[in-house]
């Protein structure tokens, strides 16, 4: 195929909404949504603060299969309130993961896929968002004992805050070039640490440190994929087939402490230093 023909055959995953993304990943005809928007389980906190709610609170939970394997998908809608998690959206993800773990204890090997486009806690529901994210962490660690939990950060919102920790707990992480993965949003770092430490308007700088390509080159994610529905679907399917990873990234404290001990923390850091420290020189 020529380059332009290839381009014509590509379908952007990033441009899809949360529900379309979940449908695109599941085997054809298997998508079944739980707590669909017509049930209107909405945020009890937004309206009273004068913020318009969304019928699904920005989270889509769908059951189905991928490559024939039983899967539950939790997809966050990045366009609604920056993908922030409030009480309802957070409970949807936590509850779905809890039930998936229960499935496994009862003999059904349900896996989970998390489509993460989120700034983290929704500040209008602050402490309930934070509590829900703690529940999500707990549920990922629980489910991960039995079956893989695959995290996908496609972009364009990226994955930040408490949900970046959730990403770090996943069995596998898949990102695109459009993805960013980091604990603190650029604005907040600039607010807390100053412009010299972190210029939130310098997009190339931010991507060079937290973008998908850099995260992959530093070994902080497992797959780096083009923004293409078919390719992402195939990679997610492969990861699910693989079963549990030999070594869980979040369980490598000794390794990371050794690496950090080798770092000269005095000078300000650049992307190449991170790649070298975490992966060695890569061509």
């Amino acid at each position, binding site marked *: 195929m020529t380059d332009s023909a290839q381009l014509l055959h590509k379908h952007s995953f990033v441009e899809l909404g949360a529900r379309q993304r979940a449908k695109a990943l599941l085997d054809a005809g298997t998508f079944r949504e739980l707590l669909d928007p017509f049930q209107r389980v909405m945020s009890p906190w937004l309206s009273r603060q004068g913020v318009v709610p969304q019928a699904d609170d920005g989270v889509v939970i769908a059951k189905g299969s991928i490559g024939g394997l039983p899967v539950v998908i939790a997809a966050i809608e990045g366009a609604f309130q920056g993908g922030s998690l409030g009480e309802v959206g957070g409970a949807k993800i936590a509850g779905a993961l809890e039930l998936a773990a229960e499935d496994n204890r009862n003999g059904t090997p349900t896996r989970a896929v998390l489509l993460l486009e989120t700034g983290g806690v929704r500040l209008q529901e602050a402490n309930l968002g934070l509590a829900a994210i703690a529940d999500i962490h707990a549920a990922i660690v629980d489910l991960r004992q039995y079956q893989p939990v695959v995290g996908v950060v496609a972009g364009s919102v990226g994955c930040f805050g408490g949900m970046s920790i959730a990403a770090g707990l996943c069995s596998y992480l898949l990102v695109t070039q459009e993805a960013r993965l*980091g*604990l603190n949003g650029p604005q907040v770092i600039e607010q807390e640490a100053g412009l010299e430490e972190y210029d939130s308007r310098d997009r190339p700088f931010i991507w060079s440190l937290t973008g998908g390509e850099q995260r992959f080159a530093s070994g902080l994610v497992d797959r780096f994929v083009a923004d293409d529905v078919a390719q992402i679907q195939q990679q997610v399917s492969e990861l699910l087939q693989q079963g549990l990873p030999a070594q869980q990234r979040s369980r490598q404290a000794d390794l990371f402490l050794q690496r950090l001990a080798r770092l000269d*923390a005095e000078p300000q850091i650049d992307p190449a230093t991170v790649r070298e420290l975490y992966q060695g020189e890569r061509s």
Partner: protein
Amino acid sequence: MSSYSLRGLSWFNALSDGAKPVEGLPASLKVADGVLGDQPVRFIAVVADPDNRFVRARNGEVGLLEGWGLAKAVDDVITADVDKPHKRALIAIIDVPSQAYGRREEALGIHQALAGAADSYARARLAGHAVIGLLVGKAMSGAFLAHGYQANRLIALRDPGVMVHAMGKASAARVTLRSVEELEALAASVPPMAYDIDSYASLGLLWETLPVEQIEQPTSADLARVTECLGLAIGDVGASGRDLSSRLGASNRAASSKVRELLRAQW
């Protein structure tokens, strides 16, 4: 006068009197093995280290070394107790102003370091260790998620300086495009947005709140009261499950229960 809180250190020192310090961890972590009544426990606190190699983590913030260090401090207990019928309890003493905000931190994957800590605490809980979080100061955002929020039981001391939140007021105001005054006004009527411990308690996330006489420097009566409460919490964990379901049920967190019920019905 220090610019950072000494509460975590004070309570760690008071509770771990006579306990054996654990070596080989970052200086910003205080870890010791001791007993609480007749229970073997490991005490863990994150404290300020003015000489921290990472300059953005010198005031007690949870940064790269702290995240991975906590992961190790907890994981070592899981490994050591793996064949023991009675698992040591973990007491997380919480006084953490925030996660570390900095370029080095983001570049080196602080999110992964915090995931390491949350991972270990969660696995300890699943392995049958009682994990108790004792809030003596701030418990903010990512720092709390890494150090304490995976606990089976959370106990807070009743004091204006004990607060839980997702973000500091100035940053929260900037992100939500509000003034700090507007934010405070909203917090007064929306419990999950408040910074005070009573509003937080109304969400059902705390097992107990305890008044003390001197939160900065605990008196012997304070110490006795907290020690007793920690012991009761450990016993309570033993009598129930290993998950976090005991945090559900408050009317201010009703939607969290309702969503779970509906999901189960439609699963």
